Each structure stands twice: as C-alpha cells, then as structure tokens.
C-alpha cells in the first residue's frame, strides 16, 4: 500500500483516524518519515493534527506549557525559556531543530530523546486528550501508548538550578554518548535541598538517578560534597551499546561528566 497523509484540524479527529489502524501520528516527521524512507511497512497513513494550540508556548506564574508540536528551535529562542534552552539546542543540527517537536522527542528511542531527559529532571506532566500523566508514568508506558500527546507542563527552574550536559563525540551536533539533566535546589546555607537528576542513553529511555539524588541532599556542591553522588550515579543503569559508544564506555564516562556538571 502506498503511503498517504491525513491532516485534521482537531486532535479528536486525528485520534479517530489514528485508532482506525495502520496509521502513525506525525509530529515533525524526523523519525517517522525517516522510518518510511527506510521501508518501514508497519503503517500506511501519516496522521497529523494542525490545531493551533499544539504550537503554543505559554509561561505564566513560573509554569511553562509547551504544545506537543512546538519545535526545539522555538524553545531555544524563546526569551522566557532561556534557562532550559541548552536542552533544546542539544537536539540535532539547525534543520533538525526546526522540525523536531516536543511530542516526538518523548517517543524518540535512545540515543535520542535529549529534551525528554530535561523534561524528566523538570518533573514535567504529559497531557493527552484530557488525561495528565507524570512524565515517569508516561515514559514507562510509552511503547503501548496509542493516544496523542497535546502538551507538556513544568515549573520553570530558577536560573542557576537547571544543569544540562550532552556528551557527544562529534561536535557540535553528534548523537549522544549520554546526556544528563539536573534540577538542583540549594538551601540558604549552601547545601542541596532537593535534587532531580535524569540520564539519557543509560537505559532504553530517559531514567532518574535516584541513588545519586539521595546522596546529594544535605551536601554542598564541592568535590567532597558530591563524592557519594558521583559514586552512586551509575546505580541501576543499563547503558546502551550502539555505533557511538559501548555500554562499558558509557558506564565509565558517566561519573566523569556528572562530576563536571555538578562542579560547573
């Protein structure tokens, strides 16, 4: 069967077409059109919704809502999203960033999904046709997810609380060896009050580094203070082996890059 595209003005209509079967939702198309070009025969129809709200970015009372069709380029240049711009800029080269959407990034298999690593550290919620899921829940169930993501929402971190690093071999736009996102809140006495740390390429999807998070709380961001967290950062990970790096290599360099990010 030849491919075809069906565009709908509303998410509801697109959802009906998607549920009819042999169809794939298309965000920016960087992964689905590539799959079709490579001969993926698991679908016959690209479905998309053109609803304007999917393209909206809103920031109010410290909460950011990004429509699922918002692109990495739009995030990277939005004046109110400058704290997290580094994560959007980590995705591909300029043309990919002009196409790659927030919604699509949530489904991107490792070694992709750099922006979703940031969303996990930011404790985002994922909104889908009336339902609201914690990002952890969403990521855990994403393989069986057959709905349409409409937006993601999160509290914007304080300017110095968000840290992000993408490690790649080819600069500036190579695929991730790994990525790390962290939201670190420091208390008035300079110790870490709360920490959320997320890792990319350390499993088949973005994951939390809970042991390292626990080891950081109450400590200072000094060489001594972070030592336990650095020792614990690889706990529970199952790094990926691909053309860019082996699981062994990823496991070896994770503590090195985590340490640098915490001391930066």
């Amino acid at each position: 069967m030849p491919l075809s595209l069906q565009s709908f003005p509303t998410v509801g209509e697109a959802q009906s077409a998607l549920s009819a079967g042999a169809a794939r939702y298309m965000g920016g198309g960087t992964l689905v059109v590539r799959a079709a070009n490579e001969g993926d025969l698991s679908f016959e129809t690209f479905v998309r919704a053109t609803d304007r709200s999917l393209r909206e970015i809103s920031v109010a009372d410290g909460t950011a809502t990004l429509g699922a069709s918002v692109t990495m380029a739009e995030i990277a240049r939005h004046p109110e999203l400058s704290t997290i711009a580094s994560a959007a800029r980590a995705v591909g080269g300029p043309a990919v960033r002009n196409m790659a959407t927030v919604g699509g990034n949530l489904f991107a298999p490792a070694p992709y999904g750099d922006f979703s690593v940031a969303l996990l550290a930011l404790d985002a919620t994922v909104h889908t046709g009336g339902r609201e899921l914690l990002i952890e829940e969403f990521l855990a169930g994403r393989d069986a997810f057959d709905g349409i993501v409409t937006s993601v929402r999160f509290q914007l971190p304080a300017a110095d609380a968000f840290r992000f690093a993408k490690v790649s071999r080819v600069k500036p736009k190579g695929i991730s060896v790994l990525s790390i996102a962290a939201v670190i809140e420091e208390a008035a006495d300079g110790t870490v009050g709360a920490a959320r740390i997320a890792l990319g390429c350390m499993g088949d999807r973005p994951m939390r580094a809970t042991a390292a998070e626990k080891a950081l709380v109450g400590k200072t961001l000094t060489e001594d203070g972070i030592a336990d967290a650095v020792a614990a950062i690889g706990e529970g990970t199952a790094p990926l082996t691909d053309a860019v790096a082996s699981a062994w290599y990823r496991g070896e360099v994770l503590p090195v890059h985590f340490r640098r990010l915490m001391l930066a």
Partner: protein
Amino acid sequence: MAKKVPVQFTLNGEERAEFVESGATLLKALRERHGDTSPKGGCHQGTCGACSVMVDGDLVLSCLTLAETCEGRDVSTAAGLSQDGVMHPLQRAFLDGFAAQCGFCTPGMLMAAKALLDENPNPSREDVVEAISGNICRCTGYEPIIQAVLSAARANSHVAA
C-alpha cells in the same frame, strides 16, 4: 497507484501547483514534479543535509518533509539564490574560495549558510560551524566552506555599511 493530491506553494518566489503522491517527500516533489534538482538526495535519513531547503524562512530537510505540509507556504532552494544571472554573494564566495569539490553537498551548505546569514548577518566562526553542523561534506574538509561563509558575510556587511 498512490493517491495524487494537489499542492500549491511558492518556489523561489514563483507560484507552483502540482499533483504529488500523498505521503511523498518535498525532496521528491521538487526534483520530480517541479524540475528543481538543486536539493540532493544523499541519505534520505536527515543525516547529510544535502537536501536542505527553506520553508517559510526556516531551514528544513526536504527528505523528511512531506510535500503536502508545504501547502500555501514559501519554499526556497539553492536554485533560487542567483538573481538575473548574478550569483548570490554566498555562491560567489564558495566559487572564489574553492569551497566545493564534487559539489554534492553544496546546495544544502548554501541553504544552511543562507539561513544563518538571514538571521545573523555578522556571524562568528563558531556560529558558522554550528549552522552547517547538520551538513556533511566528504570532500572539502569544511574549512574552505567555513571561510567562504565568513567572507560572504564580510562582503555583505561591507556593502551594507
């Protein structure tokens, strides 16, 4: 037979209307329906950048863009860079600076460079490297391309000054 759908857009400023196969890429439509062979199909995976064009002023990969999504939009390609037989300053700089060998990557490089200069007429070397980071060249070693983009920017700022 694939379903054919009408798609209208402007291509390098000219109104165009064609029937394309539903689900066909913009790369295919440009090359096979519109006679514009400037975007090259290198990898069809988004990796090489040879197919780069601009849609409504944004650099995109035509191999991963469906033609139908360009309905009513403004598409520009490397074929539209020269005006009335006069080369665009970027083309002139590529030629003068030996920034092309086999030339396969050149149309995509030119579009990536144009997207940069449209937004930032006075880029740093780092900006240029970032701007062409999605484009692979197997011949030049990149340095002549980077220098050509910088020299086109300098030539332009000289004219504007």
